[in-house]
């Protein structure tokens, strides 16, 4: 006789919360590390540099996350057998890189052209114009949309359950197959996502306010 009380279901699903958060944090971090160079390439004047970056960004965002994970997990398995978790991390990182690269790119594009001109007029080298003047402002501009993306990513990690990553949803499906009420079990899962997401949303709203007050360009 199984116990499907709230506390019991919650205890079971909490075990997956760590994996969900791990996937969110790792793929967001990897997405940032990959997204910054992609954004720099994407804003290059050289077609040969810009085009590959555009292609990578469009492909990473254009393929549904589920399809990415299935391709990486099943598609690569003959050549490169992967455990579900690494496969999910790779897929989610690729997707994050695409979205975050676009956020950084938009940040760079949205720095007022007068900023670069003022820096140039002060005799700053092109590299100093970018790293000292444009990049810090671009980063500020791209923080709010990236924080929102982190919230979206947290929820997107749920698809990793399809390839067998033992996250919240995977454990919830187990509970249901063991006879738990689907509505009830998934409601508990929803509560867990909400609890994990609220601090992130709160942070994203807070950072949005900070950035707005800090970067008032003319």
């Amino acid at each position, binding site marked *: 006789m199984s116990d499907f009380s709230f506390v019991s279901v919650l205890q079971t699903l909490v075990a997956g919360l760590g994996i969900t958060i791990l996937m969110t944090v790792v793929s967001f971090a990897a997405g940032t590390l990959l997204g910054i160079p992609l954004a720099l390439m994407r804003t290059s004047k050289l077609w040969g540099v810009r085009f590959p970056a555009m292609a990578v960004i469009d492909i990473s965002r254009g393929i549904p996350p589920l399809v990415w994970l299935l391709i990486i997990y099943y598609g690569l398995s003959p050549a490169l057998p992967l455990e579900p978790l690494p496969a999910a991390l790779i897929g989610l990182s690729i997707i994050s890189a695409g979205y975050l690269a676009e956020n950084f790119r938009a940040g760079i594009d949205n720095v*007022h052209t*007068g*900023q670069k*001109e*003022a*820096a*140039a*007029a*002060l*005799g*700053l*080298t*092109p590299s*100093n114009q970018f790293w*000292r*003047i444009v990049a*810090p*402002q671009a980063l*500020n501009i791209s923080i709010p949309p990236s924080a929102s993306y982190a919230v979206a990513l947290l929820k997107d990690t749920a698809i990793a359950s399809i390839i067998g990553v033992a996250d919240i949803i995977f454990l919830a499906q187990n509970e249901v197959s063991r006879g738990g009420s689907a509505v009830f079990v998934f409601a508990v899962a929803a509560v867990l996502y909400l609890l994990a997401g609220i601090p992130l949303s709160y942070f994203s709203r807070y950072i949005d306010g900070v950035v707005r*007050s*800090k*970067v*008032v*360009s*003319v």
Partner: protein
Amino acid sequence: MSEPRVLLDAESIEKSFKDNEVLKGITLKVHAGEVIALIGPSGAGKSTFLRCLNYLERPTGGSLSLDGAPAFTDPLGPTKAELLRLRRRVGMVFQSFNLFPHLSVLKNIVLAQKLNGLRGNLEAEEYARELLGQVGLDEKAHAKPAECSGGQQQRIAIARALSLDPELMLFDEPTSALDPEVGNDVLNVMRDLADRGTTMIVVTHEMRFAERVADRVLFLDRGGILEEGAPEQVFHNPSHERTREFLQAVLDR
């Protein structure tokens, strides 16, 4: 008294954007200590000409000399080093201030001094404070630009441009984004600079300022200098009908 030396020699500066000829060969010699006002209708090419003088806009013809030496070996293909050298010698103040919003007021003024290797940290800060004092804003050193009014921001921008000890200052409609009262604070700082012997070229719609402060007024129309002379001559006895019309329209407002 001997003729003062020619600081800037702009020789038949041309600029075209595709088929659109914006500057049709403007020649201007500026003597050290001289204040030049560029006036004229919008679209005449005043700002474009000014921006050609520090190569923010790259001329499509003509040449520049600073203090007797050509600024570029090939004016159409400037090297990076030549560009940097020119810009370190020529300061510019923009209509929209363009202060760096992520840096404090003090850092705005310190940054280029340091990156250009002009002064060390302490010296640069000390000089920045001195310049802030000169434009009447000592108390704003640690504020962010967004915490300053438009007029204050423009005075800070002037201090920032002065921080590299430029031989020539370019002003691109410095008061056009400001209401008249605040604009006066900026004009007073500029007048002060002129009194100290700073060589300046000012694109402006402030006719009264041009008349009082400029040594020479240039009236630009359709990409060329239509008329130039001492302020009293250009303002009170213009030789061209077009100049008369323009001044009439401006003064009637």
